[in-house]
């Protein structure tokens, strides 16, 4: 069942032993299977590690990095499509490199990282500290420092079994989502020893609450809770890690079971430490979104020297031209075609007239016709795109043919050898494959053969959205070989269930729709608000963001005023849009809230700004006389009463509104000045402004200059009336 292929052919057993005596070579384990289904349907036909990332298979990046970092022995654990992985390694020159031996370990029944490590343990190939990565890691970090730290700790304390590599990343929820498509990660780290004390990588489910064990605080002199770190999934492990997996046979997932298991269970006293990298790059391709982001990082050269124009391994010579255009030799390009910046074109590709390519990666041997638009796409090798096609933010696999006039909407994935028919429009986020979509549950068995990683997902949320696709009910495809991708097309569109559709944008290569971004901001803002109200929450670690700095610098009044003017304008624009597009109150509230947070305004400002917008609307409506204007006001206020009320939870906001109104009457909208009392009265009648607010406002104005008291005087009668009313009430 388990086959082992020798990579170091010249090395006999005796020599091996000898070498071991001298020193243990640095070893690494690559898991050439992610044990998830996020890259379906592509991974039904090809293992994830062989998918091209900027025209070179992912595993080449991992191997090239390990090689340059001084690793001497690598064990590649292949599971799904193991044959393809082994064939690839055979064909490439990885076997038989000097001072770098690659050995494959094959298994067909491992269904998780835990199984893989147990299997490797049985083989007794790991003799010392080793590096554990998956075959989709892109990094250029130097391991020496991390290894040194790890070894030093080991010498002092044999229980320090693992060092996790982490990297700083901005704590903004939008960035996290839009860069790697991962959930929020919380870690508790001892700031002095760098020991990892708590790990939670499903921050999105926490709804803003994080509960820590009290013992964490009592046992440690200081802890820091961090949410601005990114887990690079590069671990330096001691051999004990393998035996731990064997002892705890239920451990499946590296992080969720193993790391959390060790942290919770302190009987054995095993410890995990962290190592933070700063200038070097490390990231793992977990889903389509991170595939997109990491491709872009590579094109922007963060991963130097693992970039297309450096032949780090077997990739063809590519030249970097101005504005980040990478062009391989032997490209046939029409004079009238336009290739935009940050684009990679593989060798042997031909590009027709008036074709525009921007922000994309085009593989080798593709033929692209005339008048084609390609924007933000990943086109792999030997793809044929006929005239007039339009592609946006999609992944197009090897051998695909797009007939003339076909179009892809953002987020589409076309798996191998699919043919898209003439003038067919593939809807957004759909996945097209020659394989039929597996039907839920029982399909897993059948799939086991094609993709061993299926059905292995330990919990639905592990693999996120695509898992949802698999678990949720979905309609069965007709058994007949009827293709649904247009005239002459070949391929099945994988259907997406309702719940899946909702989540699809998270992990696709397409940019996140604006409304989703606003929603994310909103959620995170709500979360941020919660702790403030509780007052009993650990502040997130790390330095204060720039936002909080502006918050402190109140002396810079000029800035603040500028901000408030812009803010007002933004609110007005938002409101205007709401009126034009008939957006519901809830959405307006959402948007205004996010504006408030981004401009750092108080809720009173919102109230003022919104009131201003409402009044402006009334003013803008056609009217001839003050009377008609008043009518306009009445109707608009009636329509937006709910919205206004939302922002007027207390007297302070109401006073702000009156002040605002006063200001309007004086400056921007003089037409209101004769109507001041009338409208104020109306607002009072409508319960938008309470009597206390008006009275407070009046008393506040008492000491003001004469010129400021115009409206107080105007409304003297009204105020008098209010006072009497309240006195009457008191008498009662």
């Amino acid at each position: 069942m388990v086959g082992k292929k020798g990579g170091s052919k010249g090395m006999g057993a005796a020599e091996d032993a000898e070498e071991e005596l001298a020193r243990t070579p640095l070893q690494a384990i690559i898991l050439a299977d992610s044990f998830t289904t996020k890259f379906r349907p592509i991974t039904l036909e090809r293992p994830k590690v062989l998918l091209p990332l900027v025209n070179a298979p992912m595993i080449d990046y991992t191997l090239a990095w390990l090689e340059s970092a001084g690793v001497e022995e690598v064990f590649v654990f292949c599971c799904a499509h193991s044959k393809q992985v082994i064939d690839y390694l055979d064909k490439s020159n990885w076997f038989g490199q000097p001072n770098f031996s690659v050995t494959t370990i094959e298994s067909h029944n491992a269904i998780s990282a835990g199984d893989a490590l147990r299997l490797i343990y049985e083989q007794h190939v790991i003799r010392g500290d080793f590096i554990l990565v998956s075959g989709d890691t892109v990094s250029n970090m130097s391991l020496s420092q991390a290894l040194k730290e790890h070894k030093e700790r080991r010498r002092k304390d044999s229980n320090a079994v693992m060092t996790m590599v982490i990297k700083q990343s901005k704590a903004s929820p939008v960035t996290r989502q839009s860069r790697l498509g991962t959930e929020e990660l919380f870690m508790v780290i001892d700031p002095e020893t760098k020991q990892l004390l708590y790990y939670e990588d499903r921050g999105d489910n926490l709804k803003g609450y994080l509960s820590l064990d009290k013992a964490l605080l009592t046992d440690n002199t200081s802890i820091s809770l961090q949410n601005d770190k990114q887990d690079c999934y590069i671990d330096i492990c001691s051999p004990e890690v393998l035996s731990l997996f064997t002892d705890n046979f239920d451990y499946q997932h590296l992080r969720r079971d193993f790391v959390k298991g060790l942290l919770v269970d302190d009987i054995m006293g095993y410890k995990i430490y962290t190592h933070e990298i700063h200038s070097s790059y490390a990231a793992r391709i977990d889903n389509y979104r991170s595939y997109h982001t990491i491709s872009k990082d590579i094109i922007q050269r963060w991963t130097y020297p693992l970039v297309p124009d450096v032949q780090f391994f077997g990739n063809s010579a590519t030249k970097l031209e101005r504005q980040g255009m990478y062009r391989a030799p032997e490209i046939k390009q029409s004079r009238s075609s336009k290739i935009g910046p940050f684009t990679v074109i593989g060798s042997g590709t031909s590009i027709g007239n008036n074709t525009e390519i921007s922000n994309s990666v085009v593989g080798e041997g593709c033929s692209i016709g005339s008048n084609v638009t390609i924007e933000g796409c990943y086109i792999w090798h030997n793809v044929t795109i006929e005239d007039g096609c339009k592609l946006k933010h999609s992944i197009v696999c090897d051998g695909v043919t797009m007939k003339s006039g076909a179009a892809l909407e953002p987020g589409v994935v076309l798996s191998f050898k699919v043919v898209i028919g003439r003038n067919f429009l593939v809807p957004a986020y759909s996945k097209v494959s020659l394989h039929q979509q597996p039907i839920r549950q029982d399909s897993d068995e059948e799939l086991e053969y094609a993709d061993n990683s299926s059905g292995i997902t330990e919990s639905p949320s592990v693999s996120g959205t695509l898992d949802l696709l698999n678990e949720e009910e979905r309609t069965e495809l007709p058994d007949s070989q009827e293709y649904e991708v247009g005239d002459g097309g070949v391929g099945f569109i994988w259907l997406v269930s309702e719940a899946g559709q909702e989540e699809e944008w998270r992990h696709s290569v397409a940019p996140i729709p604006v409304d989703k971004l606003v929603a994310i901001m909103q959620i995170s803002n709500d979360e941020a608000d919660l702790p403030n109200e509780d007052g009993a929450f650990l502040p997130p670690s790390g330095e204060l963001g720039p936002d909080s700095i502006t918050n402190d610098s109140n002396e810079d009044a000029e800035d603040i005023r500028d901000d408030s003017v812009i803010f007002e304008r933004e609110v007005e624009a938002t409101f205007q849009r709401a009126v034009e597009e008939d957006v519901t109150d809830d959405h307006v509230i959402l948007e205004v809230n996010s504006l408030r947070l981004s401009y750092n305004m108080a809720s009173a400002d919102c109230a003022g700004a919104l009131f201003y917008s409402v009044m402006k609307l009334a003013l803008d409506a056609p009217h001839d006389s003050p009377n008609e204007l008043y009518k306009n006001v009445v109707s608009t206020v009636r329509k937006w009463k709910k919205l206004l009320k939302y922002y007027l939870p207390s007297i302070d906001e109401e006073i702000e509104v009156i002040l605002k109104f006063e200001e309007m009457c004086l400056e921007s909208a003089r037409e209101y000045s004769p109507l001041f009392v009338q409208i104020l009265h109306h607002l009072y009648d409508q319960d938008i402004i309470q009597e206390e607010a008006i009275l407070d406002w009046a008393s506040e104005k008492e000491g003001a200059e004469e010129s400021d008291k115009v409206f107080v005087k105007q409304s003297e009668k009204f105020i008098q009336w209010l006072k009497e009313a309240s006195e009457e009430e008191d008498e009662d």
Partner: protein
Amino acid sequence: MNALVNEFIIKLKKRKIEGSKTTAKLTAEVLRSCISQQRLPQTNQAVALIDAIRGIGEKLIAANPVELAVGNIVRRVLNIIREEDASLTAAAVGGLGISAGSDDEDDVKQDDHQGLSAAALAAAARNTLRPPSLQTLLEDIPQSTAVPRTSSSGGDSEGKSKSADKNSTSKKLKHNVIEAVNELIQDIATCHEQIAEQAVEHIHHNEVILTLGNSRTVMEFLCAAKEKKRSFRVFVAEGAPRYQGHALAKELVARGLQTTVITDSAVFAIISRVNMVVVGAHTVMANGGVIAPVGMNMVALAAQRHAVPFVVLAGTHKLCPLYPHNPEVLLNELKSPAELLDFGEFSDCLDFGSSSGSPLLHVVNPAFDYVPPNLVSLFITDTGGHNASFMYRLIADYYSADDIVVKQKSIPLK
């Protein structure tokens, strides 16, 4: 042999070798071992050897096209083979000349030749390969018209003393070539010493010297002047983003030189106080243009603006016989933006998921600058000081015109 070459190619590809000097030295060493292991046929040995070196050289150059030192050394070695072959043929012909004892009019000249030293003979042989250099014209070595003629007549005369000569020549060629390559390696290793020797002629008392970044040659040059009891001050521009100027400043201070470190952007402010700019180079092109660490063009422009001499120090291994075409892009290397910015701090600016899918922030970190020849006042190489316009001549001394395009199929030697 292949393993050695491959290992070197991999290192070049992965950009593990840095600096033109180390690259040049390693290339020469690799080629030397290739030559010593190359089996040569009985006839046309030089051609076979040239072909072999060309083949390897082509691969080496392709491994890192930006590192021009590789190509330079390959061409130098090819030239060495040609020269050694020519001098051997000439010697053989000379030997034949006596035994044949012709009563031609050339006879006297021929005998004259016999009396000349081996070096002169080699120089004469060189004349068969290329037009006379300025040096030979000045030294006034008699131009022998006989040499080409005899060499062509050597074909039939070779037949007579064939068996005796053959073996010794084959060994001799290889031996001589390896000797010469060793010399080349030696030259590369000691070039900065020879450049430094000239320091006293250029640096005078109480001068202010400006330099940018870190160059071993510049450091030796300045220290040599210091050792000769010249007192002067050095301004070091730090050379962002790699800040190698800091290392240079440390070294200079350790050697007792008065040093001031300035930012790169302060170069223009300080240039009016500077008497001379002395910098190192990555490569010197055939037109006299210089590929140098980034920021150098700015320094050169500042120097020109204030009429300050801009002196470039370069070992002869940095002379490249190619003319630059779009060197700012094609002969440049873009390094990781991580040298400029911390990725973690800026990760929110590199957001590919929102808006149009392309981030608003781009970071460009080129390694080199191209300084056009008109900005360079003087080149100091191990053979002395030269004007930028003289570079092509110097190049003609070190390279054979046939080797400038390494890829080209070799033209058989006569």
